[in-house]
């Protein structure tokens, strides 16, 4: 009888660890980061470096100060910093980028209990905070491939203004356009997203529903060309693959993910077509983050033998 040992559940352990998942996300974001350096020049590397450094440092110091276990090794702060950097324009003053990273880690994540307990996506929330706080510098987008950082309108602003010249669809796809660091280069983002889906880190449901909803609504609103521009413009692809799939702030069940994706798509399109801001991806993801607990409640499965 001595050989029979009973331990508490879980009995089957998966090989997935938090740091492993986060490492995969970093690998998936690397193409977009490299593309941003190619498109916007070396300053984007500087912005990424500042964001990642301050995110990791603030996580370390915060956990030291409140005397909890220091979990910097799980790389989640690194991912948050990287995601935030990819959501910023290249000309952002570095102190603002650093402040945004600290806000993401300390206020959005740390104060709510750390990794897995935050209800809103830290990078998205920090970006919105910065958009409201530093509207001027956050919307000063620079033209791609220009050494002297000339400012330009983003395609979404151009679509709204009517009559301003739009980049060609090929340039749109390759990311030769104004915008945030990591949001412009569609192939790089798609490579990263597909890598994550194949590794089983994210499911295809949310991104497909999200982008699909925006495409269909744009098709109805303004025709085929307009719809293609809408899908390629702004932070849609980046948001759909990397932000709307965050574990702790989005629904866990498949149908919940569908609701989440479609909801994000509707809000994004509504803000883009009728709102005063040109872009609605970050607002839509934050709003859907907030109702995620309800979506999880609606889509809770009935256990076998359980009463309906």
């Amino acid at each position, binding site marked *: 009888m001595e050989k029979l040992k009973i331990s508490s559940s879980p009995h089957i352990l998966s090989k997935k660890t938090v740091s492993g998942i986060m490492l995969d996300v970093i690998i998936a974001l690397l193409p977009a980061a490299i593309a941003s350096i190619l498109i916007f020049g070396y300053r984007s590397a500087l912005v990424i470096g500042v964001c990642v450094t301050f995110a990791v440092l603030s996580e370390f110091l915060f956990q030291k100060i409140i005397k909890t276990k220091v979990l910097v090794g799980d790389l989640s702060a690194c991912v948050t910093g990287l995601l935030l950097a990819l959501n910023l324009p290249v000309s952002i003053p570095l102190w603002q980028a650093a402040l945004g990273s600290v806000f993401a880690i300390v*206020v959005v994540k740390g104060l709510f209990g750390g990794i897995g307990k935050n209800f809103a996506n830290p990078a998205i929330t920090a970006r919105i905070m910065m958009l*409201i706080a*530093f509207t001027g510098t956050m919307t000063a987008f620079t033209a791609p491939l220009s050494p002297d950082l000339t400012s330009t309108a983003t395609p979404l602003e151009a679509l709204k203004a009517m009559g301003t010249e739009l980049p060609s669809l090929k340039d749109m796809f390759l990311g030769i356009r104004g915008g945030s660091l990591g949001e412009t280069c569609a192939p790089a983002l798609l490579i990263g997203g597909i890598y994550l889906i194949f590794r089983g880190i994210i499911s295809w449901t949310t991104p497909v529903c999200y982008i699909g909803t925006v495409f269909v609504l744009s098709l109805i609103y303004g025709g085929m060309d307009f719809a293609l521009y809408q899908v390629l413009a702004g932070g849609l692809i980046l948001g759909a693959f990397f932000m709307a799939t965050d574990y702790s702030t989005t629904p866990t069940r498949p149908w919940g993910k569908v609701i989440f994706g479609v909801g994000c798509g509707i809000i994004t399109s509504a803000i883009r077509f009728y709102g005063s801001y040109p872009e609605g991806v970050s607002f839509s993801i934050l709003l859907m983050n907030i109702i995620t607990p309800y979506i999880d409640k609606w889509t809770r499965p009935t256990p076998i033998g359980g009463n309906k």
Partner: protein
Amino acid sequence: MKNNLRVLLNGFVKENPVFVLLLGTCPTLATTTSVVSALAMGLAAAAVLVCSNAAISLLRKIIPDKVRIPAYIVIIAGFVTVVQMLMEAYLPSLYEMLGVYLALIVVNCIVLGRAEMFASKNTVGASILDGAGMGLGFTLALLCMAIVREVFGAGSFAGMEIPFISDYTVPILVSPPGGFFVFGVLIALVSALGKKPSKEEFGCEGCPNASLCKGECGKEKA
């Protein structure tokens, strides 16, 4: 004498009306965008608080219990009108700056709360001290918030620009969301530094849940 001093100092930190009792949140958020308006608001409220506390304490045996709240509001509104007229006459620019919030001191929960919790049960002298302490505590809290918000949000202090900081301002602090943020952080700071008043000291009169719990909350621990 020692007791009187304690009554006066209570309002500063231990029972600070804004950061510990969480009263008067509306004027706190609305008037702390600049140091000048915060100071004016705090002192105006403090003046009303001292006068109304004194008057209510004098009349505490005459006012029938059933109509005490309307009676308090009439007394408070009288003093607010006096302060308002004085400010309009002698400090017109401040009067313009505070706008509707000056008249809203009538329904400021600190003034009404101290009338109900303290002045209706204590002597005139102690009530005046309590009013002064609470009023100055309110002013102090408003100043703290206004300094954080104006210095880091607008890069100035009482309208004077600060050379280095004005290049690195965070304008969101001056707007309402930033106000809530500073408010939350300061509440956390005060409750981390100071000892919270226990339920016995705080009393059921000042507790918004009193009608629901009927004094049961204190018994839980025992």
